[in-house]
């Protein structure tokens, strides 16, 4: 398991609380502001997930599609996002782990081996590829490379997946597993707790890996409910929405800060 994630989950356990993982698209709305946003997020989140934007995404809601398009317009590409993360990590004081979230094409085009190496040299702690299929040669290569360098390979499972699929996925997954809370797009519906329980049970049957839950978590109350079942919760559209609506506002990072501060209040495991 990646050391920083290990620490994150250990510390949270000790404090009897869950972890908050915040997502933002890298370079949305531009390099400079994005850097400030990520630094702010690192102050409140257990981990930070940074999107490499892809213009033909097959799983994102309009909110994140718009963020992708803003970032691309601002010149985002794989190289620059790595640079961004590296700079942010060198400036922050703590060991908050950073993940990259993206689609297979940017990774594949960059070259899988080079991408893995670049994760290491840029202090990236984990990787989520939304459309990486367990059976693809790219997935095999990628999981092998990431394992070598101890970068977490966080894989997704969804309410529509059966146990066989979950078992298959667990084989490659490292550090934690991402549970999609409903059948739908990021941020398009309300978190579905029934689904979360069902899948978490299947996972627990087969593994002790920490569980992170994403899709549809926006409020303190969402966080609170999810954290009763899972180890971490991922909040994306809630943050990206603030970026989209305030991209030219001086108070942007402040707003994100107070949004996250409020969410954190829901992280307590005890009733």
């Amino acid at each position, binding site marked *: 398991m990646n050391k920083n994630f290990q620490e994150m989950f250990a510390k949270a356990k000790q404090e009897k609380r869950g972890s908050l993982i915040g997502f933002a698209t890298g370079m949305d709305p531009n390099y400079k502001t994005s850097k400030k946003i990520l630094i702010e997020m690192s102050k409140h989140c257990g981990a930070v997930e940074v999107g490499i934007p892809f213009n*033909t995404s097959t799983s994102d809601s309009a909110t994140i599609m718009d963020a992708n398009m803003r970032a691309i317009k601002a010149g985002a590409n794989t190289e620059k996002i790595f640079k961004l993360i590296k700079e942010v990590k060198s400036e922050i004081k703590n060991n908050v782990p950073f993940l990259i979230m993206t689609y297979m094409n940017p990774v594949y085009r960059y070259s899988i081996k080079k991408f893995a190496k670049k994760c290491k040299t840029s202090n990236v702690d984990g990787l989520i590829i939304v459309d990486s299929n367990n059976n693809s040669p790219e997935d095999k290569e990628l999981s092998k490379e990431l394992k070598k360098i101890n970068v977490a390979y966080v894989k997704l499972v969804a309410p529509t997946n059966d146990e066989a699929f979950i078992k298959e996925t667990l084989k490659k997954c490292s550090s934690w597993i991402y549970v999609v809370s409903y059948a739908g797009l990021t941020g398009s519906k309300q978190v579905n707790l029934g689904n979360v329980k069902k899948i978490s049970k299947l996972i627990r049957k087969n593994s002790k890996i920490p569980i992170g839950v994403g899709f549809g978590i926006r409020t303190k109350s969402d966080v609170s409910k999810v954290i009763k079942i899972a180890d971490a919760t991922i909040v994306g559209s809630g943050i990206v929405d603030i970026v989209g609506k305030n991209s030219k506002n001086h108070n942007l990072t402040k707003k994100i800060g107070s949004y996250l501060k409020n969410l954190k209040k829901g992280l307590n495991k005890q009733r």
Partner: protein
Amino acid sequence: MKIPPFKEINPPNKNGYWINPKTKESYGGQYISPLLIPNLQKVEKCFEKAIKDKKFMKGLEEKLLTFIGVNTPILRSTELENLIGGARKVGKIYLKRTDLHHDSSHKPVNSFSSCYMAKHIFKAKKIICETGASMHSRSVAAACAMLKMDCEVHIGAVDAEKVSLNKDISELYGAKIVVVHDSTKSLLPAMASALRSWQSNPDAMYVVGSVAGPSPYPRMVRTWASVIGRIAKQQFKQITGKVPSTLFCVCGGGSNLMSMAYPLLKDKTEIFAVESAGEGIPTGRHGATILGGSKMGILLGFKSKVVMKSAQIAESLTEASGLDFAAVGPEVAYLHDIGKIKFRSTTDMEAKKTFLMCCEKLGIVPAIEACYVINAAIKEIKKRKNPRENHLIHLCGSGESNVARMIKFKRENE
């Protein structure tokens, strides 16, 4: 008329890949959120079941013959021959008339077959699809109307303007139209939008409009569509006693190409695919995935040649909405890379002039997409200058929905 049966001659492996024996490069696969994996497995199972189900296939084929009208004629075109020296110099030219299908293109054969399977085997109540020239959505919507299913169509905002006739017809058939304003506002973001919608509606079935998308779509679509080529091959043998010397098809994603080429893959027919060179390949403003030198990429669930700008899918620029697809289907890329299919191209300007020529000299209003292939075929056939050859061109659509733009072009150029 009986439809010649399907024979699998170029199957992908169990993970949905075609593998190049020399380079070991793989094409196809299933690159998609895990959410959709069960749906895809279900589609694949349904497809396997469908093609083995005699009663289902009989019902389907009857509808293809009487509703879609798939037994379209092959027309000998002495008019085209005479444009380039006559049959005695260049051989005989034949046109496969899928422009005479219900809803006027090759698309309905796949659309109807997929929807028929969705209804009777997948048991879906709703179909989700994307569309470019709206030929696909029009035919999916028609199938849904007849089969009493809901239909949701995703269309790029730019295309919705360009081919409004087909869009209006889709609406008359009862389809719900979702206009997509993402990215290039054309076919690719529309397909991404359709796939995203499927994730929110896993009980629906997604029906793709070309030999693209995650496995099993590329194989399923070419299998359904190959009804066209199976009939054409039989007809051609009846007319000329032989298989065609050459076959010419336009290539956006590759459905009309595969519909005709597939049953001829093991024959000695020389197969040509024609891409849109847009304003000219060197300008960078074109829709020529293969001839533009595209690299392998992964998008919309499959791995194939993709027009990209660094890791982003790039705009494919062409007059023809139906060719505005920044990739080719994986089996097409594979067949190109192993040398089985040759590629040619036509610029938008050449295609538009060919449109007017076809109207004026053939008495046919072709789909603008078909004009790319006619133009390239004429150029190639003229160059070959072989009087013993029998050439077959796939006239893959009728151009009612292009009339508004083309009559303007005609008036501006007179």
